[in-house]
């Protein structure tokens, strides 16, 4: 079980980001859902292995996406590119 300070820290990070960006609090979840649907075409991926972190500093906003997979899909199983290239 997470310690109170870890929960507090996580809540505060989200809150401060939301205050600064006026982005909806579910933004990271929405991005995660979209990225998940794209990445699962190329690799075996569990939802818990995909992390989307939004941070900000003086330079701007940083969206950090990290995904962990044990297996990429084989060439024949990859989706065909739509523009035909």
């Amino acid at each position: 079980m997470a310690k109170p300070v870890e929960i507090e820290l996580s809540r505060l990070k989200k809150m401060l980001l939301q205050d600064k960006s006026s982005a909806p609090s579910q933004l990271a979840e929405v991005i995660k859902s979209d990225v998940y649907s794209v990445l699962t075409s190329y690799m075996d991926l569990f939802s818990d292995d995909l992390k989307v972190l939004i941070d900000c500093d003086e330079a701007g906003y940083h969206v950090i996406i990290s995904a962990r997979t044990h297996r990429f899909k084989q060439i024949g199983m990859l989706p065909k590119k739509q523009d035909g290239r």
Partner: protein
Amino acid sequence: MARKIVITSGKGGVGKTTVTANLGAALAAKGLRVVLMDVDIGLNNLDVAMGIENKVVYDIVDVIENRCRPKQALIQDDVYSTLCTMPSSHSYDKTSVTGLAIKNLTERLAQSFDYVILDCPAGIELGFHRAVSAADEAIVVTTPHIASIRDADKVLNLLSTYDVVPLGIVVNRVRGDLIASGDMLSIENVEQLLKRQVIGVIPENDDISFGNAMGRTLYGVKDCFALLAENIHTGSRKLIDCTQPYRGFFGAIRRNIKKRV
């Protein structure tokens, strides 16, 4: 020319007035000429923290409305002759107290002192604007709690729209035992969240509550305010480590005892 520093926070009850009073005393203990200005008009408490509420004849509104000279409104501290307080008015009529009026008064006082420290009201409305627009530098006071840090962050963002240099954060009411047990945000957590340097750590301490109740600043008693004053005056960064007594085997025993008591 004096340094003009506003003590602000956004959230009320985090200890702005306590920090103002004790920082002023700690700077005066170094022999510096310090004036404390209570800009919290209508909800004045700096006079209470300094224990001078019975000595107030003229206040800041009297000075601004030219009923007296600034010197007549200043109240000298009993212990430190170089420490003076400009009390605020208990009247709610603030129409004459504009940001410009406070700025002009601050400029006048700056000619006779080394430090002008302004005690800012809570909130981010007109009172905040009045206090901040008169200062060159700002210190943001917060506690290691979620609501206070959120408000401190908003205030830091607001300060960037003024011509004010944020000197750093003062974290008040820090509990070393809770930090050591992972139940309170650490100083590093606060720095990471607010992306500013912490220049003062004030532990939760009965002496501070007692000092406030008795109308006494902690003259040279508390290292935390002496270190804060030194950090501000010299630009150093020395902080008290509140967790030190609560680390290790004996620290764990102390934490348990404190929790049970």
